C-alpha cells in the first residue's frame, strides 16, 4: 500500500533518470560524430535529432550546438539538465519514501549539472562531462538497488525506467529501420554509432563478433533475451514489475498486467528468423503503441482511478 501520488512520483523519477542517461549517450555519440567531417557523421547527427523529435531546428544549428542544447538547455524539456531536474523534483516529492543514500546520489548529480560550473565543464570536455553523468546515474541505480526495499515503490520506479527505456530505444530503432521505403543504412560508422547510443557495442561484439550488419543489430537490440537494453528484455521487466505491483490490487483492476503480458509474449515468441529489415517498422509501431497503452492503464489502475469505484460500501 502506498499513496497514489507517491507511486506516480517514483514512476516519473524512473522515467526521467532513464531519459537523462539516454540523452547523455545520444549527445556523446553526436559530438563524437562532429569530429569527423564525413557524410556518415552528418547522417548520425540527423538520426539523433530525429530520434529526439527535433527534426526542424536541426537545420539551423550545428550538431555541436544541438548537442550542447540537448545537454544543458533547461528550457528544452527533453534536455539532460531538464530531465535530471525533474527526476530530482519528483524525488523531493517523495523524499520520505526513498533512502537517504538514493536521494544523495541524485541530488549530487542535480547540483552538479545545474551548478554555475556546468557550462564550463561541458565546454572544457563534453565527453568527460557526459561520461561522469552516466557514471553517477549508475551509482544512483546501484544505491537504489542496494538500499531501497524492493517493494511496491521500487516496482513503480523500475516500471518508469523500463517503460521509458523500451520507448526510447524503440524510437531510435524506428528512425534507423522503420521506413521500408528508404535504403537500409549499411554504413559501418552509422551502425556502430547506433550500437553506441544503446550502450550495446561491446555486448554486440561479444555475441556476433565484429561482423556489424543491420539485420544482426536489429535482432540484437530487439530480441536479445539477456541484453538489458533490448526491447525484449525491457518488456519482460515491465511485465515482471507490473505483475508484482498488481499483487496488491483486486484482480478486477489488473488491466495493465494483461497488456504487459501480451507485449512481452509478442517479443518473446516473435519469428525472429523471418523478420526482414523492411518489416521491422510495423512491429516497432506496435511495440510503441502498446507501451503507451500500458502507461495509460497504469494511470487508470493505480493513480488516477475514479473514486466512485473504490469507496467503501
Amino acid at each position, binding site marked *: *500500500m*502506498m*499513496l*497514489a*501520488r*507517491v*507511486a506516480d512520483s517514483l514512476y516519473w523519477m524512473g522515467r526521467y533518470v532513464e531519459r537523462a542517461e539516454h540523452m547523455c549517450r545520444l549527445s556523446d555519440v553526436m559530438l563524437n560524430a562532429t569530429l569527423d567531417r564525413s557524410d556518415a557523421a552528418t547522417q548520425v547527427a540527423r538520426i539523433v535529432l530525429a530520434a529526439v523529435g527535433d527534426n526542424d531546428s536541426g537545420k539551423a544549428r550545428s550538431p555541436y550546438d544541438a548537442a550542447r542544447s540537448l545537454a544543458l538547455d*533547461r528550457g528544452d524539456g527533453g534536455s539532460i539538465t531538464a530531465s535530471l531536474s525533474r527526476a530530482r*523534483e519528483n524525488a*523531493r*516529492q*517523495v*523524499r*520520505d*519514501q526513498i533512502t*537517504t543514500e538514493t*536521494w*544523495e546520489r541524485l*541530488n*549530487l548529480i542535480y*547540483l552538479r549539472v*545545474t551548478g554555475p560550473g556546468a557550462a564550463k565543464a561541458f565546454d572544457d570536455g563534453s565527453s568527460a562531462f557526459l561520461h561522469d553523468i552516466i557514471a553517477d546515474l549508475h551509482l544512483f541505480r546501484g544505491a537504489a538497488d542496494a538500499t531501497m526495499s524492493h517493494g*511496491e515503490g521500487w516496482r*513503480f520506479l523500475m516500471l518508469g525506467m523500463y517503460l521509458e527505456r523500451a520507448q526510447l530505444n524503440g524510437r531510435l530503432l524506428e528512425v534507423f529501420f522503420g521506413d521500408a521505403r528508404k535504403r537500409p543504412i549499411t554504413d559501418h560508422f552509422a551502425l556502430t554509432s547506433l550500437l553506441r547510443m544503446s550502450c550495446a557495442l561491446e555486448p554486440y561484439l561479444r555475441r556476433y563478433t565484429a561482423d556489424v550488419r543491420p539485420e544482426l543489430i536489429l535482432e540484437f537490440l530487439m530480441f536479445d533475451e539477456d541484453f538489458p537494453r533490448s526491447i525484449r528484455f525491457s518488456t519482460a521487466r515491465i511485465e515482471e514489475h507490473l505483475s508484482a*505491483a498488481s499483487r*496488491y*490490487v*483486486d484482480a478486477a483492476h489488473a488491466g495493465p498486467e494483461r497488456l504487459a503480458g501480451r507485449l512481452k509474449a509478442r517479443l518473446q515468441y516473435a519469428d525472429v528468423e523471418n523478420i526482414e529489415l523492411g518489416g521491422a517498422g510495423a512491429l516497432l509501431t506496435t511495440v510503441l503503441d502498446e507501451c503507451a497503452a500500458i502507461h495509460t492503464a497504469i494511470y487508470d489502475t*493505480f*493513480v488516477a*482511478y475514479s*473514486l466512485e469505484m*473504490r*469507496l*467503501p460500501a
Partner: protein
Amino acid sequence: MATAKRSDTSAIETSDGAIPYDEMLTLAGEVRSHYTGLDERIATLASADMAERQRTLERFFLLQGITFTVYGAESSTERIIPTDLLPRIIPAEEWATIEKGLTQRLRALNMFLADIYGEQQILMDGVVPRELVLMAPSYRREMQNLYVPHQAYANVCGSDLIRQPDGAFAVLEDNLRVPSGVSYMLANREASKRTFPGTFRASNVRAIDRYPDLLLSTLKGMAADWRPNPQVVVLTPGVYNSAYYEHAYLARLMGCPLVEGRDLVVHDNMVYMRTTTGLRRIDVIYRRVDDDFIDPLTFRRDSGLGVAGLFNAYRAGNVVICNAPGTGVADDKAVYAYVPEIIKYYLGEEAILPNIETFLCREPAQLSHVLSNLDKLVVKAVGASGGYGMLIGPHASAKERSEFADALRADPANYIAQPTIQLSTAPCLIDGEIDPRHVDLRPFILSGEKITVTPGALTRVALKKGSLVVNSSQGGGSKDTWILAGETEEPQP
C-alpha cells in the same frame, strides 16, 4: 598557522549598558566548567581547519537537501540555513529547571485550552479577560465542547526561551500551532557528531535521536482508545513550503505516509488517503498546515492545501488532528502575559520559568507607558510571528517610531510591548574567528497521555553582530545544543 582565536571583545555592549550573559565565559573572562572540553578542542584547531570543517558541514546539509529555495525570475537557487559549527552547551542542573518549567507550563496551557473550549471557568472567574480570549483571531468557536483525548491540545510545542543577563531562563513565547525546527535540531546533531566526535563522546551529551519515535507514540496515543493500531500520517502543504524538508524528514523517520490535501478524501465523515490499492482510512493527522487552511468548508474557503470535510470528520470523532485546531489562542501574544496567572489558577503553583515583562497596549495606562518609552521597548503585533510586524525601539529611527506610535493609537489591542531583551551570547565561528553572537533556545515538548520534554533544543543564532533577531527569515542561523547528562544519570551508551 594561526589558531582560531577569540575576538577581543568577549561581550556585546548594548544600549542600556547591561552586559548580556555569555554562555561560555564568566564576566571575569574564565571559561565555564561545562565549556572547557570544547574550548580546549577549539584551541588546538587551526583557523583553516575550522573553516574546512565548516565547509564539510555545509556540504553535508546541501547534500541532504536541508535547504530552502530562493525563487528568482530565471531560475531558483537552493540555500542551506546557516549552521554554526560550535555547539551550545547546557549543564544538567540548568536543564532540569527548564524541563520542570516547561512541563508545568504545558500542563497548564493544555488545561487552559480544555477550559476555554469547555466550561470557560477561568473566564468566569475573571482571571483572563473574556474578550481577550474570545476576540482573538486564533480562537476557534468550532472547537467549543469538542472532545480532545487526554485534553492534549498542543501535542507538539516549541517554546522560545531566552537567557537573561543574570543567567536565568525566561519564556519569550510559546509556539502551540505548527512549530518547526525539530529537523534542524536533529540534523545539527548529526553534523556536530561528525565535527567534534571526540569532544562529543567525552562530554556525555544526552541523546535526542528518539524524538521521531516519541512523536509517533504521542500521535498514536491520541487514537489508541478507539483504534488498536492507528494509521498516522503527516499532512504537508507540499514541496514548496519552506519547512517541507522537515515534514518529509519526520514522515521518513516515523515511517508514516507524507500526505498532501489532494491525497485525502472525506467520505461519510471518515478520512481516507488515495493509495495505489484504493482508499485507506486515516486515524491521526499530524498536520503541518495552519488552522486556516486545513478545511475549506470550515475555515478559509480559498484553501487548496487542506481537504473538504476534514473538520466534520474530526467533530464526529473519526480522526484526530494534531495539534488541535484553535491551540493558537494559548500562544497569542496578549494571552501570553497571563500565563503565570494561568499556571497559578490551574496548578496552584508559581511559574518555574518566568515570563518577560509584557505591557498590554489594550490597557490605557499601559498604552501611555509604552508610547512614552517607545525608544526602550520592543513592540509586537499580537497576530504576527517570525519577526515581522515588530518595532525594536532602541534600533529604530525617530521617524519609524512615530509611524509605529500612530499604528499603536489606531489599534492598541493589536499590540504588546516588552523591554529590549538581552539575549545571551554564545561563541560562534564567524569568518574563521570565534566571536559571540546572540542566541535563544527552542526546546520541543510533546503532550499526549503524558508530557515529554526532549533533552535537546534548537539554538537559534542572530548571525549579524549585535543583532537580536534570530528568525531564519531575518538572517538567523542555528547551532547544535548539547544537554549534558548529570552525575546521577547513567552515561549514554
